[in-house]
């Protein structure tokens, strides 16, 4: 699936955040979007993930030369992990199962996919634990697990390692690198850590003064 953003503009209460953002995310792999705090990275990510409307410009998803309608079916093929993931007040495994349950997937399949994903992010030992008792690093991994269980074609990660320790940062980077090796999806993430971007990016993009530079 191809993602193209063209001339995206966005302002909040008269303050221009995004002026003119255009880019074509053609290939699978890891795209890292960089820029200083408050430059509009998260806004651009939410617009790309179809969770927010731009004031101007277009976000287009395409497949085999055809343009896909921005409907629920398309929204369910992509997902965004928020910087604060919003933990549901239940167990770790039920948090991960959530996105599959809302899609009406059969119980047996949910169980197998949840177990596989929890093992992938290293939380399999904590599956029955209350999710709100996890550490902040584990919580961030839970957020990634909730998205990965869907096997999304485009995964947006908004500052996934911003507020966690080195150990968990390393684990998350290794999860992203594993996904990169599988080459089945696009990962589009934001960070303000240049060294991290160097470590994991296939392509680095910079957002500055509301303009996206590839």
């Amino acid at each position, binding site marked *: 699936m191809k993602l193209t953003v063209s001339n995206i503009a966005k302002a909040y209460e008269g303050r221009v955040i995004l002026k003119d953002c255009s880019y074509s995310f053609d290939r699978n792999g890891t795209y890292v979007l960089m820029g200083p705090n408050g430059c509009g990275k998260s806004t651009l990510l939410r617009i790309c993930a179809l969770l927010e409307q731009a004031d101007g410009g277009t976000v287009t998803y395409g497949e085999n030369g055809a343009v896909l309608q921005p409907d629920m079916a398309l*929204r369910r093929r992509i997902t965004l992990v928020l910087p604060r993931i919003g933990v549901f*007040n239940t167990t770790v495994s039920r948090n991960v199962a959530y996105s599959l349950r809302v899609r009406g997937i059969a119980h047996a399949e949910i169980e197998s996919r949840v177990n596989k994903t929890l093992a992938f992010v290293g939380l399999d030992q904590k599956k029955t634990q209350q999710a709100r008792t996890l550490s902040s690093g584990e919580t961030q991994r839970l957020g990634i697990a909730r998205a990965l269980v869907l096997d999304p074609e485009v995964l947006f990660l908004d500052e996934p390692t911003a507020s966690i320790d080195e150990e968990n940062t390393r684990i998350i980077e290794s999860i992203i690198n594993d996904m990169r090796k599988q080459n089945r999806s696009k990962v589009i993430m934001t960070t303000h850590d240049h060294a991290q971007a160097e470590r994991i990016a296939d392509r680095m993009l910079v957002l500055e003064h509301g303009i996206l530079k590839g």
Partner: protein
Amino acid sequence: MNSLIQGFVQAIDLILHLDPVLFGIIFLSLKVSGLALLIATAFGLPAGALLGLKRFPGRDLAISTANTFMGLPPVVVGLFVYLLLSRKGPLGFMGLLYSPTAMIIAQTILATPIVIALCQSAIVNVDPIIRQAARTLGATPRQVTLTIIKEARYGILSAIIAAFGRVMAEVGSILIVGGNIAGYTRVMTTTIALETDKGNFELALALGIILLAISFSINSILHAVQKKGTVTVS
């Protein structure tokens, strides 16, 4: 002091020997309050959810009204329902005055604002990030709403239990609209009032003990529910 101890001992005896009059009164109390709570929840939970989830004109007024009505004086509600159901009242033709149905109506009026206001508060206090998280994970608008209500479940349960506590302990309105008729509309609280007046402390005390036990159980459940819902957020 002696009569109090004597009354207490006789009260325990009544409870242990499963006195049919005593248990008839307890059963009617639970039936009236339980049904009132059921109706109040059926109406109050959706209304509270609507007030907690949606923005519409008049919402603030509705919330303020529900909050104010939480403290409705039971005798005023009793008087209102009495005037409504009395022979000359607009619903007098139904012949409901001095019946358990009239008591259920009065208690429903008392319980509903509690359920509405506390459910609204529980729902509005769910972290807004939950709504966003549900959306990012592909939930439909209806599923997002259900997720928020589910996240507020401990607060909602607390609201229902609080309303039950209020109606179980209430005496003013049901005395006015029920008439305290033996074997028909006599419940725990009205019996306690009547038997105390008559100086018959055994039955009054027995019912007092049971009422306290029920109240204690409700509070214990409430505490356990709140404790379960308050998980440490790291």
